[in-house]
């Protein structure tokens, strides 16, 4: 019901300044006052500076940054848990920042759901009662909401745990409850604020898989906050990297890894396992000639996967084919191996433009 006509979230010229006279200093910041100067001269903190993001419907938008970069502040603007100092957050063309309190409450109930870093479950309610929480608030009768909640609990792998209390569950399971609670709302937008940061690494990967599997079905617009680049690259259809309250690069995982916008991003990317991120089409020699016979490999396969497949067959050109069977280009085992270790910039073969914020 909620998905009809939803065309994504647009954030335009968003500024957030923390302090008693925030509005006064917006102009100065727009005219080039830096974060440090604002702090020293006026004692105000610059949280976000000129954020412009378009999040298309049905995609996972990852916002990545280290602590203090403003990423948690940014996600709280989407459902206005934090009020912006200037700028617009457009949801289907409606500015969230200008909604009345009643409209905002209705918007939060119907259009967004949120998953929190520290789970934020109600300790006095059991798993099932926690899952129906959002539906309770919408005023849906328990007889109906219980069915919905049970379905989502089963979907996130918590069948049989309905009567347990949050303190009887591990962190990973508690976050599954948090996820089920958010999904039960059936809102078009799912906000995940460092949802997996408090989990240990194996469980985190596990939960990422849960989310990716679910997304194939539910096609929500997911905004995912993380400080972990590996997580960002694995989940994000689009990634925006935030530093000191500014977006320093946005693009796909391929863009970020192959063409880091600056030294700062490059430093992150150095540590990334490139084989798992890069797709074969990003490293192939493009050619549109028909397949010459022999091996083919599907576009979208990761380089690591391709190396594993090719390691047991004789050397030679392998054709990369699109899902429709069209030939896109060729790769060799050597070229793939090179891509896994080479951190030099690979020229952009697709003519895809880089989205780099100023």
């Amino acid at each position, binding site marked *: 019901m909620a998905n009809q006509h939803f065309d994504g979230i647009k954030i335009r010229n968003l500024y957030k300044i923390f302090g008693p006279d925030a509005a006064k200093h917006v102009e100065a910041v727009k005219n080039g006052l830096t974060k440090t100067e604002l702090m020293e001269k006026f004692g105000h903190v610059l949280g976000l500076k000129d954020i412009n993001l378009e999040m298309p419907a049905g995609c996972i938008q990852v916002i990545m940054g280290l602590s203090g970069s403003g990423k948690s502040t940014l996600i709280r603007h989407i459902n206005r848990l934090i009020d912006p100092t200037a700028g617009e957050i457009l949801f289907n063309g409606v500015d969230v920042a200008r909604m009345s309190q009643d409209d905002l409450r209705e918007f939060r109930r119907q259009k967004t759901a949120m998953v*929190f870093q520290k789970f934020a479950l109600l300790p*006095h309610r059991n798993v099932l009662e926690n899952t129906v929480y959002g539906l*309770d608030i919408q005023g849906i009768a328990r007889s109906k909401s219980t069915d919905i909640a049970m379905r989502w609990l089963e979907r996130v792998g918590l069948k049989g745990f309905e009567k347990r209390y949050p303190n009887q569950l591990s962190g990973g399971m508690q976050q599954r409850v948090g996820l089920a609670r958010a999904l039960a709302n059936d809102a078009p937008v799912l906000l995940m604020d460092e949802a997996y940061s408090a989990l240990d690494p194996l469980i985190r990967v596990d939960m990422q898989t849960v989310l990716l599997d679910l997304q194939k079905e539910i096609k929500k617009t997911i905004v995912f906050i993380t400080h972990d680049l590996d997580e960002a690259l694995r989940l994000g259809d689009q990634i925006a990297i935030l530093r000191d309250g500014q977006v320093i690069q946005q693009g796909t995982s391929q863009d970020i890894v192959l063409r880091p916008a600056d030294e700062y991003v490059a430093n992150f990317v150095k540590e990334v396992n490139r084989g798992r991120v890069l797709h074969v089409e990003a490293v192939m020699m493009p050619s549109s000639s028909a397949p010459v016979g022999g091996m083919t490999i599907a576009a979208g396969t990761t380089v690591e996967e391709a190396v594993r497949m090719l390691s047991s067959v004789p050397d030679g050109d392998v054709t990369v084919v699109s899902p429709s069977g069209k030939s896109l280009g060729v790769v060799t085992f050597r070229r793939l191996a090179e891509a896994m270790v080479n951190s030099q910039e690979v020229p952009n073969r697709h003519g895809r433009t880089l989205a780099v914020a100023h």
Partner: protein
Amino acid sequence: MSWFNEFPHMEDDSLRALKQTIDEGFRSFTRGYGDSIESFFAPLQKFLLLSERLMTQTPWPIIVLMILAIAWAASRSMKVVLGTLFTLLAIGYLDMWDDSMRTISMIFVCTVLSIVMGLPIGILMARSERFQRVVNPILDVMQTMPSFVYLIPVVMLLGIGRVPGLIAVVIYAIPPMIRMTNLGIRLVDKDVLEAADAFGSSHWQKLKNVQLPLALPTIMAGINQTIMMALAMVVIASMIGVQGLGQPVLKAIANQYFTLGIFNGLAIVGIAIIFDRVSQAYGQRLQKHREIVHG
């Protein structure tokens, strides 16, 4: 240099005049409004009589069973129930049953009244800094003003009897209820509150689903303190005609009856311990899901 050795105080005459004026003013207020104030408190009088009749006219075995059932329902502990039974039997055997029932009925009414008034005040205090700044000093006065002092205006207004006693006890016993409600709500985890906001809770939904349930253990501690303070006040309230265990104690003080005093005093202690253990055990049970039992 007389001002140096002796504190320069108001003229004796004007001081006397000041006191007289205030006294006169209050007396004429009493004459003018005493009756309407009394009729305002009439429902309380009814409530008090009803609960007292229930406690004293019901046959004792039924009362004992009732109290034991409440103790079991709240604490789920055999130890507490047995302790309660022993205390009640000892009180009855030493011929203090009727007085004890009157005291318990009085404490019950005081506690209900304190909760009904204290809970909303505590909630308002947690919501508004300004209201908190106003109420806090009033609570300080209520807790530190010697209780005999506010017995005077209460008696002047309402005479001697149950209702003025009730008011005196409530004034003394309500502050912990208000303070702990305020504290409990203020201590609710900010993350959970943010989640409530993010899901679009109204103020009332937030209060009902999140703040009150999470503050409940602290509020229970407040109720426990209120009961204890009400019991402590029972002897003083007996000076203005509240019946119960306080009156024999008062008689014992006046006539130096050592044993009478100690028996009735111990009965108050016994009732206090029952109330305390039962309400604490209930508070503990509320906390059961808060402790971390799994990493």
